[in-house]
């Protein structure tokens, strides 16, 4: 089973990387972009785990390892069969 975990800064923490991307986009003329937040994404391949096991395992891994709870929050989902990806 493939799961995807998104880790990003808590709203209370400034995200200078996102700001920099936003500024760059403005300079390039993409005025419609009002805000950018940048974070990390992890895709885990879990072997032989059931949905239920994943539901305990993934948040545990995210909390213990992937995110630093002082500054970051996380979100996760099980990836359906597709896992599509553009070019």
């Amino acid at each position, binding site marked *: 089973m493939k799961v995807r975990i998104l880790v990003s800064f808590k709203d209370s923490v400034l995200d200078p990387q996102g700001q*920099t991307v936003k*500024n*760059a986009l403005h300079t390039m003329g993409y005025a419609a972009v009002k805000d950018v937040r940048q974070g990390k994404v992890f895709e885990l391949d879990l072997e032989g785990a059931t949905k239920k096991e994943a539901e305990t395992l993934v948040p545990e891994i995210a909390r213990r390892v992937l995110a630093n709870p002082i500054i970051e929050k996380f979100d996760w989902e099980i990836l359906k069969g597709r896992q599509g990806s553009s070019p």
Partner: protein
Amino acid sequence: MIDKKILDQHSLTEDEYRLIVDLVGKEPNLTELGIFSVMWSEHCGYKSSRVHLKKLPTEGKHVVQGPGENAGILDIGDGQVIVFKIESHNHPSYIEPYQGAATGVGGILRDIFTMGARPIAVLDSLRFGPPDDPKNRSVMEGVVSGIAGYGNSIGVPTVGGEVYFDPCYNLNPLVNVFCLGLADKDKIFYAKAEGAGNKVLYVGAKTGRDGIHGATMASSEFGAETEHKRPNVQVGDPFKEKLLLEACLEVMDRGLIVGIQDMGAAGLTCSTTEMAAKGGMGIVVDLDKVPQREAGMTPYEILLSESQERMLLVATPDNVAAVQEVFAKWDLDAPVIGEVVEGGRARISFKGEVVVDIPVDAVVNLCPAYTRPSVAPAPPPAAPALDSLPLPADCGEVLLKLLASPTIADKEWVFRQYDHMVQVNTVFLPGADAALLRIKGSKKALAVTLDGNSLYTRLDPRTGARIAVAEACRNLACVGARPIGVTNCLNFGNPEKPEVMGQFEQAVTGLAEACRTFGIPVTGGNVSFYNDTEGLSIHPTPVLGIVGILDDIRKAVSPGFKAAGDALVLVGESFEELGGSEYLKVVHGLEAGAPPAIDLEQEKRNQEFLLEAVDAGLVRSAHDLSEGGLAVALAESAFHGARKVGCEVDLDEALRADALLFGESQSRIVVTCRRANVGRLLEMAAARGVPAKAIGLTGGAEIAVRQSGRELLRVPVEKACRIWKDSMPGFFEVRA
């Protein structure tokens, strides 16, 4: 089955193919052809350059290893040697600046530690298009952070380098990285597979499809699916390389291996055949044992992959377990993938079948060398007669303009991103004429510099190359070090163009002449041809990396003025030379004229004198004159001082003011000494036939220059320094 189309895809000519058939004794299969194609490529085989490189002097009393190994080795006494080399990573750095530059660092580091040396310093020579173009800035930003990302992580300080800007690098930036290592003389290792029955071990990262020679195969052979998976740029893994470095040095230190070779260009192919050829042996390899990152790789792909952070070791069967234990300690696998055998052939099997069976000598040593047609480079565009060139109305403004020009401006924006202090040896941080490294437990120090002015080489390749050597040695002399060895990276256009070949020949001639004069051996280097994009070649750009030694580190001299009231002495003679100068380029928009002349013998005398004066303890600061001439050299000396002391200078040369201030006549150095010592210093110069004269005093808060009493310029140090410092960040911070 092998036709013209396949040969074209492998960049092999029909003559070369016939030679291969001859050497192998049969028609090669596709995998064997692939092996020849990479090993006989320009990059690995030095087809176009070999005949010319023979001109370079390679012998000297310190030389332990000259060209022909991964890096050159020089004896520095006390049972220690230095190992150094320079490499280019130009094309990958344009395609993916961060990873291209990062893997460039990774590659040169492996060349050094594969010989048993711990890398102790990196220097980088970078050339980009002008930074006012956002595309150039983004390439530069990526390259600099890529070098930082790799070097900082692995813990080798990047202690110096150079950055030049010219439109000829718009589509073809140059990224040359130099590395210096230190080893015990009795712990040097070579890329040799010796002893039949010895085991071949593979260590480091798994092999993936990355970096398979871009031009080698059409997509139809592999199918579109494989094709799009084949990026020619690889992602560097400095963490893995750090583990590899420590594990390799540990097995070498404990004498557990017989030979070792990094997998760089042409990967497994190059390392297996080279090690066997150098040991005069054969080798058998089982590709099924090679750790692979992707499923379904073909022998062709496994052999030609250029995945990073991999090495090949040879160990006696007795030591295999001990070697594996060391690698396991560093969390690395070290599977045995083959064996050294008699017979001089590489026999490689895959799924139980022999897929390659070729003589290693043919692959490694018998690549044909060509004397390509060449024509003498066209004479440079004539500079306008000096009389027709208007004198600047305000020389102070010109100085400020030069200080702000990207090539001359402060490069702190770059080197602040590099960890230049890790390993606690860096005595002179970036910014001095040469980087200076102490050797722990010794009074000695090593000085290193990279140099090359490609505008000069474009205008006159031979003179430009001579100047590059002279200037590098001069930089070393300015810190008090004596040059002991040279490596070089020759960045040129397409060698199949006779003009490019003409430039190459002349540049190599100039290099050879200068190295002979200074008595320094060339211990290795790198040639990067085909730096052409959209039909335009870059300026011929030889980059010299020269290492020097200082016997007593306490005598080292730095460029900054030390205090007010010191005497300023100008060593060397000034001529009315403006050709190829930054002044002509920046102020008049001209890349024209003949570069300044250089008298190598005089240059050598000037440097010998400086070294003698430093040794006698007479010199308080020394800085060489290069881009921007005297005015810029004075300004830089003022900026480098701890207290930013100014100076008052009066010159009596009857030259045009602009030539006097901004001309780039060679062999000159500004020196300061205590006032009481001026007499002794000048006598010492005279005794050696070195022109030198007292030109003023340090002090005040301004840089002021007069010509026979008439004031030419007067600029506040603080203001000039701010302009010099703010220029580079200014290009990058506009976006914020």
